[in-house]
């Protein structure tokens, strides 16, 4: 299993490199990052522009720029110079990533728990009222733009706050700027309070597809021979459901969950933008506005690594769920 993991990690290195090259070219094509400085009125002296170009490495050819970036990253762990002079890309990504990952983690957790429970129940009680309700809501959330739902929920939160004249739901930011109760516990509750609405939004976006998927794969397993045999043996129905049916139904769900992580990160960008979080979403939009190739490549490297990591975890989980698939 260790050898398998190492092999998988090694295979993903060229994929990561390839994607950074792709994005590097794309950002380079999108225009001059110093445009805003050059258009300043009065125009800055030519030395200033020269210095900036040198600082960002723009005075070199593209391949050399990329090579220097790669060298800096591998040898010094340095993500390169940012267009905004005050920013250090490495620490920026670090703090923003933490904000985004806790959102994604809790959303996935809630979405999976809900999806498995409702998916299993609606497969067991096929064509019941519960099944129709779950199916309807699954389809509804599948058909709803993530940010439309986010804006909707935010406005409901604001409306509720106004009606009860209390700040029950936090609708802006990932934490309070000034905290009255400045203790560790105060910080945790503050952050948790800010997470409620965004987590619901992103969680339901993931839930929609997964509950449909759980239902479909549960139905397939429930109709299979080994479940019929387990029932014929006289096992208790709970045991048949959990040990024989659910365990098998979870295998395809693992794949789908891992594959959806990339889409969920996209959803996180939107959710964070609506709730004005300082997460990876804000960083991404900034890199596009600034035409900042280094920031963009750093962003991409981190999010692609997360996607690859989740896929790896999914593959390792196969072995746990299905003893036939053991990675030698």
């Amino acid at each position: 299993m260790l050898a398998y993991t190492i092999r998988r990690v090694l295979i993903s290195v060229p994929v990561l490199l390839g994607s950074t090259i792709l994005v590097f070219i794309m950002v380079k094509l999108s225009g001059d990052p110093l445009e805003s400085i050059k258009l300043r009125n009065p125009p800055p002296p030519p030395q200033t522009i020269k210095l900036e170009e040198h600082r960002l490495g723009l005075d070199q050819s593209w391949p050399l720029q990329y090579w220097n970036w790669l060298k800096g990253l591998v040898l010094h762990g340095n993500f390169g110079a940012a267009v905004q002079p005050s920013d250090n890309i490495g620490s920026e990504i670090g703090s923003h990533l933490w904000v985004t990952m806790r959102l994604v983690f809790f959303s996935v957790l809630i979405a999976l728990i809900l999806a498995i429970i409702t998916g299993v129940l609606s497969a067991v009680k096929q064509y019941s009222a519960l099944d129709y309700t779950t199916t309807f809501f699954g389809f509804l959330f599948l058909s709803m733009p993530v940010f439309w739902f986010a804006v909707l929920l935010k406005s409901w939160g604001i409306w509720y706050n106004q009606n009860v004249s209390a700040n029950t739901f936090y609708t802006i930011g990932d934490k309070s700027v000034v905290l009255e109760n400045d203790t560790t516990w105060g910080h945790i509750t503050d952050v948790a309070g800010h997470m409620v609405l965004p987590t619901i939004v992103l969680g339901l976006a993931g839930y929609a597809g997964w509950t449909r998927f759980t239902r479909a794969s549960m139905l397939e397993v429930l109709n299979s021979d080994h479940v019929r045999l387990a029932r014929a043996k006289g096992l208790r129905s709970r045991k048949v459901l959990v040990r024989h049916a659910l365990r098998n139904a979870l295998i395809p769900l693992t794949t789908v969950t891992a594959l959806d992580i990339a889409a969920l990160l996209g959803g996180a960008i939107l959710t964070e933008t609506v709730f004005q979080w300082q997460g990876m979403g804000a960083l991404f939009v900034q890199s596009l506005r600034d035409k900042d190739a280094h920031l963009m490549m750093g962003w991409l490297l981190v999010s692609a690594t997360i996607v690859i990591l989740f896929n790896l975890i999914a593959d390792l989980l196969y072995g746990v769920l299905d003893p036939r698939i053991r990675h030698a």
Partner: protein
Amino acid sequence: MTEPTTKAAAPSAGKPVATDPATGRVEREFTVKDRSQFQQTMRRFLRHKLAVGSLIVFLLLVLFAFVGPHLWKYQYTTITPDNSVPPSMKHPFGTDNLGHDMFAQVLRGLQQSIKVALSIALIATVGGTLWGTISGYYKGFVDNALMRFADLILTIPSLALAAALANNFSGSWWIIAIILGGLAAPYVGRVVRGMVLSIREREYVEAARALGASDIRIMLRHLVPNAFAVVVVNATLLVASGILAETSLSFLGFGVRPPDTSLGVLITLGQGAVNTRPWLFYFPGLFIILVALTVNFLGDGLRDALDPQQTRQRR
């Protein structure tokens, strides 16, 4: 599906089973009525009430989007003297702060969004089918190269990649469609490749090859038609995800750009007014949901109808 495909023939009144002298066919007590795969699929699809209803609603929406603007009294660019009025008989969906009639705006937005979504599905399906078929059929080096490239695109959140790409262009609807369609192609490609890998080992493909059929012929006549069911279902679902992808891109400011409009642009412009002038935000949103919902139901019905392994009788 346990369909009655046999029909009782005219009672043969105690006559012994005989051979029809004219055709040489055996006259049997029960004759089997032939049904092509298409006919079977149609029968199964038409029995799926929700899917048929969705198809009708979707077609009505398309008609509404493409014919409506010609019949409605305001153009989407017309600036009326009424600013920010709530829905009324004159302006069924109200107006925005500049005096644009929201009904005309929603019609135009719906039209642009449907155009984008259908183009995305078309581009992704054609591109992905080609990608997957070539990759699965040739295997080896070609397969490796194509699939590693697909991996590359699949590891990056496609919304991010689309935004970075669209940042280079002006926001016309067809550029957005090409970008989003191109980014969805690897998903289709992967699915098709999986199908092709199993189909290419079948006996009939081997037979075709033995008879000297060219690679192109095998791909077009044997591989693609047999993967068709999965491709069609995928294409339908791509329309739904396409319309959502367009709205997301427009929300970030990298999609269709004003003065042209789409449903995504409309809800983005309306989000600030959600508590004060809710009609600006809710009406475009409802139309997105309506389109995506009908298309999703349609795809679900098609999947049930096209899946030959489907044995459960739907109620």
